């Protein structure tokens, strides 16, 4: 039994509210009939981007802690990841249900034979696995393997960026900004970089205390 009290820090509340903003905006546009010129493309794009941003935010928590010893952010990894899965699911549902109206022959042509779509599907499946195993129960059950499994978040981030790069025309820069952020987050996790950063921080702390 979970006897822990529900306590939210202001940071957590802000993270939850922030994560819901894209959904609120989309809901607002739908309820006010503000569909834009190509609504399906628009909603597909917005949910996809929200999923990607939240995935990168989830990945940014650990490096943020390494850099600034900001432990609170570690608690945000799971909600960011879960929200990312939520938006990715809506993204997928729009693609299958609205854009292709469940026409399986067309979906087969558009989804299963196109590399950008396959990569997107793979990202979604990873997020699904991570979502299912995100509970404390699964954490206990999988023990050491849980951490290994959840390193797949990085693979998901990489695939999501590749999905984006492969679907735009050459020279469109937006996905490359995400690729750059992902790369920085990767680098910050390299053991040597991590060590250098933490020793740098310690030295600064010592200097500050003198």
């Amino acid at each position: 039994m979970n006897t822990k009290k529900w306590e939210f820090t202001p940071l957590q509340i802000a993270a939850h509210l922030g994560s819901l903003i894209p959904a609120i905006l989309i809901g607002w546009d739908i309820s006010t009939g503000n569909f834009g010129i190509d609504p399906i493309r628009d909603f597909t794009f917005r949910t996809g981007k929200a999923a990607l941003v939240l995935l990168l935010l989830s990945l940014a928590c650990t490096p943020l802690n390494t850099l600034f010893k900001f432990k609170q952010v570690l608690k945000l990894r799971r909600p960011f990841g879960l929200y990312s899965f939520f938006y990715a699911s809506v993204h997928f549902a729009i693609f299958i249900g609205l854009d292709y109206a469940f026409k399986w022959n067309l979906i087969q042509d558009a989804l299963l034979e196109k590399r950008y779509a396959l990569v997107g599907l793979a990202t979604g499946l990873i997020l699904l696995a991570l979502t299912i195993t995100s509970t404390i129960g699964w954490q206990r059950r999988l023990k050491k393997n849980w951490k290994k499994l959840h390193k797949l978040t990085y693979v998901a981030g990489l695939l999501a960026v590749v999905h984006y790069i492969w679907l735009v025309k050459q020279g469109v820069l937006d996905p490359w900004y995400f690729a750059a952020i992902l790369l920085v987050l990767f680098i910050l996790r390299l053991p040597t970089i991590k060590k250098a950063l933490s020793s740098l921080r310690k030295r600064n702390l010592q200097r500050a205390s003198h």
Partner: protein
Amino acid sequence: MIKIKSSEITSKAEYLSRRDFLKTAGIVTAGAALLAACGTDEVPAAPPTQSLPTDQKTAPLSEELTPEDSVLNYNNYYEFTTDKERVAGLAKDFKSSPWTVEVSGLVNNPKTYGIEDFLGSFTIEERIYRMRCVEAWSMVIPWNGFTLASLLNEVEPTSDAKFVRFETLADPDQMPGLVNKLYPWPYQEGLRLDEAMNDLTILSTGLYGETLANQNGAPIRLVVPWKYGFKSIKSIIKIELTAEQPSNFWQDIAPNEYGFYANVNPAVDHPRWSQATERRIGELKRRETLYLNGYADEVAHLYEGLDPNKLY
């Protein structure tokens, strides 16, 4: 599926007379209503507005026009931005007048035209065409323009001329997108001479009866309805007749993905996405993409003996 006939052509005069007709019909109807209100029996039968007088060549429109607002605010014009919905704002102050188009190369009568020369000397017609973007969305647009053939006939291509090359203005002061140096500016496009001479190929100076908006390629652009939209080059400053096949913008960037022909073909997918269907702007359901965008009757003969699978 019924196609929009390529020959859905209305001359400017007829286009205007249609409008007059509509006006008259409106007046008649209003008059009729008035008479009816007065209780008079002799109400002149108002012509039914459904059966407008049409050009004999014109088939009834089976596909709805894309709303003008969408045509004006959903543009691929990378000289301004790669964001389709921001082009209109960024192109707002673009100077499309004065404007000249240099027609040169392998022609007997090279000439630099002012935009007003075109409007004066060529018959402006209305042409309702499908526009199919390589990104798998489409529109139906009522263009105003004149056939490229009528211009080419005036400058007289020499017997050596086999291709037509077009070039877009590249002015970094007016076009913020030019800072992206990954692209081989200026935008250029090309057609085979027989494609250029085909009656479907027009130079457009307007749409929906209005002067072409900046974001749609003012003051003059090409429209080649059976090819993917990127062939329909905007804001042309140069038309050159050549013996060699000219290069084109997207082929220069990604030769494995875009070719010279860029004929709409649902059977030939883009290497990264399907071309089998398209999303018509303003419609929810996907449409099946038609071979040569539905203009096979008019242009398929241009490609006899060539493998259509290679004409992407």
